[in-house]
C-alpha cells in the first residue's frame, strides 16, 4: 500500500488488520514532514509523543480492543484547537507559550477514534486573514507554487494536506477559512452546519460564526472525519442535539433530479477567467449527470462581506479580551513595576502580543460595539444577517444545494494583497454568507488555472443537510478533470 496517498479508511483498515502498525504509519509521515515541511512552513510544532501515541494504538489492537474509525490515522491539527499538553498558539505571539490543560472536544473525539496527532498546523493569527501571512510563525507556502499563498486562515492545514504530510487535517472556518485554502491547495474542505461540531476548546474568533471541519483529500474522507467530530457536546450550549448520520456510508454520486441552485447575484462578473470556466464546467457536468439547474436570489449576499466584518470583529474584540497577560500566555516585560499602572500593563502586553491584523480588527470591533455606534453597526448587521438567512431558507425551497465559486481567483502571490486589507477581505465574498446563515458549505477541487493552480467549487446546503452537499461534491469529484494531480512540491 502506498501510505502517502492512502485514504483514511484504507489506513485505518490496514492498521486494524495489522498489515501495517500505527507506529510505522506515524513514522512514515513523520519522515515526510521532516523532509518537506521546511519548504512549506505548514507545521508550527510537532507532537514529540506521536510515535508513542501510535504505539499505544497498536497495543490496544493487540489486546483486541475497539480502536475506532480512524485507528492509526495521522492527523495535523490547526493551532486554533486546544490540545492537552501540546502547545496551542492560535498563530499568535500572545499565546506563543500556551500549553492547554485540556483537549478540545474535536481533538478528544479524534483521539477516541484512534487518530495519531502529528502536530499543530500554522494559521493566520487568531484565524484572521485570507492568505496565511499574518501568523506569528511566518507565512505558509502553497505546495503548488511556493511563491504563492495557501489561503487562510487554515493555510497550514491546507498545505500539509495537499503535500500529504499527514493523512488528514482539521481547520476552522469563520468566513471561509476552510473552503478558501482548500480551493487554493486543491483539497476537500468542509464547514459543517453551525452547531454540528462542538466549539469547546476551539480558540474563539467570532463565536457565532466559527466552526471546525475536515480538510482532507477526498469527499469520502471528509464525510468520515465529519462523522467522528460531529454531535452534541454538553460543554457547548450552541451545539446541536441532532443525530449524526453515517454520511460516509450513504455517500452517492447519483445526482439525477437534484436541483442545483445558482445565486443570480453572484453572476455579475468579477471572476477571473479560469475560475469562471471551472465554475461553468462544474454546472454543465452536473447537468449532464442529470441534475437540474435553478436560478435563485439571495440579494442580501451583496452585504455579506461588510456584515461579516462588523459581526466578526465585534465578537472578536470581546473574545480576545482575555489575552491580557494576567493568567497565561505572553506578558510584556517591565524593567520595574514602580509607577506601572494596570492600564500600562494591559497596553504593553497586548501591544506587543498581537499583530497588525488582529489589532486592526479588535479596534474595528470595539468601535462597532461602543455606545452610540452599537445600533448603527452591530444591531443593523444582525438584522441584515437575519434577512440573509431567510433568503437562503427561501432559496432552499427551490433547490437542494447551491453551487458557486469559492473565490474570485486562484491563489495569489505572497505579499500581493498584504497592503490592501479591503481587497483581501473581498476574497471572502462567496464564503462569508454561509457562515452568517449558519449553513454547511464545502470546497471540492474541480479545475486548474492556466498556470496549473487548483480551483475549487463551493457546494452549500440547507441547515443539517450535509448528506446532499457531500453527494453533489462526490459526484463532481468522481468526474473531476483534475483528479490525481499532485502539487509540485511532492
Amino acid at each position: 500500500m502506498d501510505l502517502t496517498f492512502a485514504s483514511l479508511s484504507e489506513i485505518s483498515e490496514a492498521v486494524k488488520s495489522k498489515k501495517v502498525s500505527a507506529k510505522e504509519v506515524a513514522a512514515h509521515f513523520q519522515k515526510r514532514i521532516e523532509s518537506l515541511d521546511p519548504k512549506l512552513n505548514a507545521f508550527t510544532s510537532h507532537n514529540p509523543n506521536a510515535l508513542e501515541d501510535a504505539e499505544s494504538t497498536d497495543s490496544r489492537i493487540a489486546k483486541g480492543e475497539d480502536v475506532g474509525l480512524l485507528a492509526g490515522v495521522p492527523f495535523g491539527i490547526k493551532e486554533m484547537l486546544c490540545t492537552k499538553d501540546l502547545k496551542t498558539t492560535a498563530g499568535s505571539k500572545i499565546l506563543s507559550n500556551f500549553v492547554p490543560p485540556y483537549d478540545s472536544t474535536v481533538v478528544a473525539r479524534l483521539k477516541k477514534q484512534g487518530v495519531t496527532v502529528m502536530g499543530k498546523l500554522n494559521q493566520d493569527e487568531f484565524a484572521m486573514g485570507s492568505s496565511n501571512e499574518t501568523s506569528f510563525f511566518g507565512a505558509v507556502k502553497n505546495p503548488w507554487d511556493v511563491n504563492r499563498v495557501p489561503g487562510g486562515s487554515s493555510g497550514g492545514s491546507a498545505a500539509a494536506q495537499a503535500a500529504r504530510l499527514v493523512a488528514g487535517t482539521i481547520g476552522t472556518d469563520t468566513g471561509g477559512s476552510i473552503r478558501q485554502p482548500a480551493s487554493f491547495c486543491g483539497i476537500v474542505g468542509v464547514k459543517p452546519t453551525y452547531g454540528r461540531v462542538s466549539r469547546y476548546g476551539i480558540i474563539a474568533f467570532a463565536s457565532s460564526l466559527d466552526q471546525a471541519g475536515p480538510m482532507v483529500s477526498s469527499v469520502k474522507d471528509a464525510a468520515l472525519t465529519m462523522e467522528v467530530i460531529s454531535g452534541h457536546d454538553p460543554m457547548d450550549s450552541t451545539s446541536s442535539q441532532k443525530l449524526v448520520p453515517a454520511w460516509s456510508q450513504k455517500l452517492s454520486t447519483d445526482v439525477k433530479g437534484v436541483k442545483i441552485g445558482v445565486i443570480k447575484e453572484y453572476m455579475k462578473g468579477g471572476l477571473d477567467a479560469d475560475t469562471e470556466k471551472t465554475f461553468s464546467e462544474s454546472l454543465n457536468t452536473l447537468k449532464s449527470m442529470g441534475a437540474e439547474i435553478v436560478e435563485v436570489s439571495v440579494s442580501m449576499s451583496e452585504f455579506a462581506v461588510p456584515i461579516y466584518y462588523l459581526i466578526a470583529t465585534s465578537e472578536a474584540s470581546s473574545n480576545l479580551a482575555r489575552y491580557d497577560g494576567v493568567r497565561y500566555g505572553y506578558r510584556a516585560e517591565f524593567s520595574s513595576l514602580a509607577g506601572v499602572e494596570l492600564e500600562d500593563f494591559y497596553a504593553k502586553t497586548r501591544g506587543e502580543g498581537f499583530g497588525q491584523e488582529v489589532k486592526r480588527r479588535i479596534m474595528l470591533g470595539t468601535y462597532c460595539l461602543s455606545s452610540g455606534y452599537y445600533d448603527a453597526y452591530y444591531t443593523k448587521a444582525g438584522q441584515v444577517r437575519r434577512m440573509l438567512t431567510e433568503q437562503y431558507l427561501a432559496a432552499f425551497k427551490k433547490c437542494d444545494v447551491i453551487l458557486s465559486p469559492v473565490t474570485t481567483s486562484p491563489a495569489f502571490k505572497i505579499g500581493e494583497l498584504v497592503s490592501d486589507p479591503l481587497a483581501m477581505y473581498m476574497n471572502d465574498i462567496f464564503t462569508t454568507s454561509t457562515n452568517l446563515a449558519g449553513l454547511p458549505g464545502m470546497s471540492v477541487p474541480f479545475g486548474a488555472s492556466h498556470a496549473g493552480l487548483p480551483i475549487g467549487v463551493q457546494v452549500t446546503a440547507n441547515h443539517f443537510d450535509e448528506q446532499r452537499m457531500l453527494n453533489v461534491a462526490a459526484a463532481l469529484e468522481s468526474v473531476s478533470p483534475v483528479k490525481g494531480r499532485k502539487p509540485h512540491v511532492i
Partner: protein
Amino acid sequence: MSYRGYEPVIGIEIHVQLQTHSKMFCADATNFDAADNENVSPVSAGMPGTLPVVNKRAIEFGIKTGLALGCDIRRKSVFARKNYFYPDMPKGYQISQYEQPICENGKITFKVNGVDKTVNISRAHLEEDAGKSNHSGAHTLINLNRAGIPLLEVVTGPDLRSPAEAAEYGRTIRQIVRYLDVCDGNLEEGSLRCDCNVSVRKTGAEQFGTKVEIKNVNSFRFVEKAIEYEIERQIDELERGGKIIQETRLWDPDKNRTFSMRSKEDAQDYRYFPDPDLLPLIVTDQWIEQLRQELPELPIARAKRFHEEHSLPESDAQVLTIEKSVADFYEATAQASKNHKASANWIMSELMRELNTANMDIDKSPIKPAQLGKMIAMIDAGTISGKMAKSVFQEMWDSGKEPDTIVKEKGLVQITDTSAIEKIVDEVLVNNAQAVEDHKSGKKKNLFGFFVGAVMKASKGQASPDLVNKILQEKLK
C-alpha cells in the same frame, strides 16, 4: 422626616449570591471555605476555547426570587457580555443580563415603624461574580474561587425616601431570600452586597438631583448610617452653593463617613452585546408554575396570618417570622400545644434566651416543637404549674427528654385533689395559729401571701396554686 427642606431619593441594588452547589456557567464548586483557587477549572479561569453552560438551578433560584418579589418572569431572557478589563475578571467580560433580564416589574410592601411602605422592583437579573484581588505590597494575588458564582442583582426604582426605609428594605430582601433558601444572607461573607444610590432634591421638586452611588456596604445598620451621612453631605454641599458630582463612594464604618472611590466621568463603556456562546434563555409557563408551587409562605404574609388567625399581637407575629426556621418552630409548637400565645411567649422568652446563650440556631435546639407544645399543654391541663414548667423546660434543654418523662421521674405532678390540699392547709393554719389571729383581726396586712407560700412549701410546690388560693380564702374568712 425633614431634611432642611430637602427630600432624599434612594434606590438600592442588592447582589444576592445564589446558594447553588456549582457555578453559574460551569461545574466548579462554590464552597466558601475552599483553599485559594481550589474551585477553578479552565472555564472559571477563562482559558482559551472554554465555553459557558448555564446552571439550571441558578435559573430556578432567580425565578423563585422574582416570583416572591411579585415580578413578571420573562419567557425569553438574554445573557449579554459586559466588557471591561480587570485582573480578577478572567474573560475580559462579565456575563450578565442587560436589555432582557429574567425578572421585571416587581413590587414589595413592608413595614417601617409600623407603616406600610411599597417599593417597586424594576428588575432582577442573573450574572456571574468576578474573582478577588488580594493586594500584598507590590504584588496582587488573584483568587478565582468566586469567579463565576451566580448572583441575582435586585434593583429598586428610586422609591425610598429615608435611610430607615432603605435599611428595612434591605432586611426584607434578606429575609425573603433566606425564606426561599436561595441565599444564606450573610453580609459579612459577601453573600448579600448592597449598593445605594442617593440623591437629594428640594421638597416638592419633580426632578431628581445628581445621584451618588455608595458601593458594597456590608450591614444594614451601615446602610442606614451611610445614607444618613450622604444626605447631610449633599445638602451641605448644595447649601454652600456647590454641585453634586456623580461618583462612586465607599463607606468608612470607623470614621462614620463616605469617601470618593472614583468619579463617573471616567465611566467605562461596557460595550454590551448578547453573548454569542449562549442561546437566549427560554422559560416555559409550566416551569414557572412548578416553581410557584414550590414557594413557601413568605414572611409578610405569614406574619399577617399569625396576627389574624392566631390572634398574636402584630409585634409577636413579626418577631416570630423574621426567620423561617423560627416561624416553622412556632407553628409546630402551637399545633402541639393548641395555645398560640403561650407558644409564642415560651419561644420568644425562654427558648430564645437559651439559644442566644448557646449561640445556637433554632433548628439545632435540643427542645423540639412537639416537646415544648406538650409541656405547654400540660400547664393548660393543670398537670404542672407554670413554676414547675420552668424547671421542666430547663431539664428538657439539658437532657432533651420528653416533658412527661421528666415530670414522672421528678415526681412533679401537681396536686389537684381538693381534700389533699385542704389537709395541708389545715396543718399550716394549725401550726401558725398566731398568724391566723393577726390576719383575722386585721392586725397585720398582707399575710395571705405568707399562707400561700407556706402551703406550697409544705406540698413541695406540687399543690395547684389555684386550689390553694381558693381553699385558703374560704378558711380564712
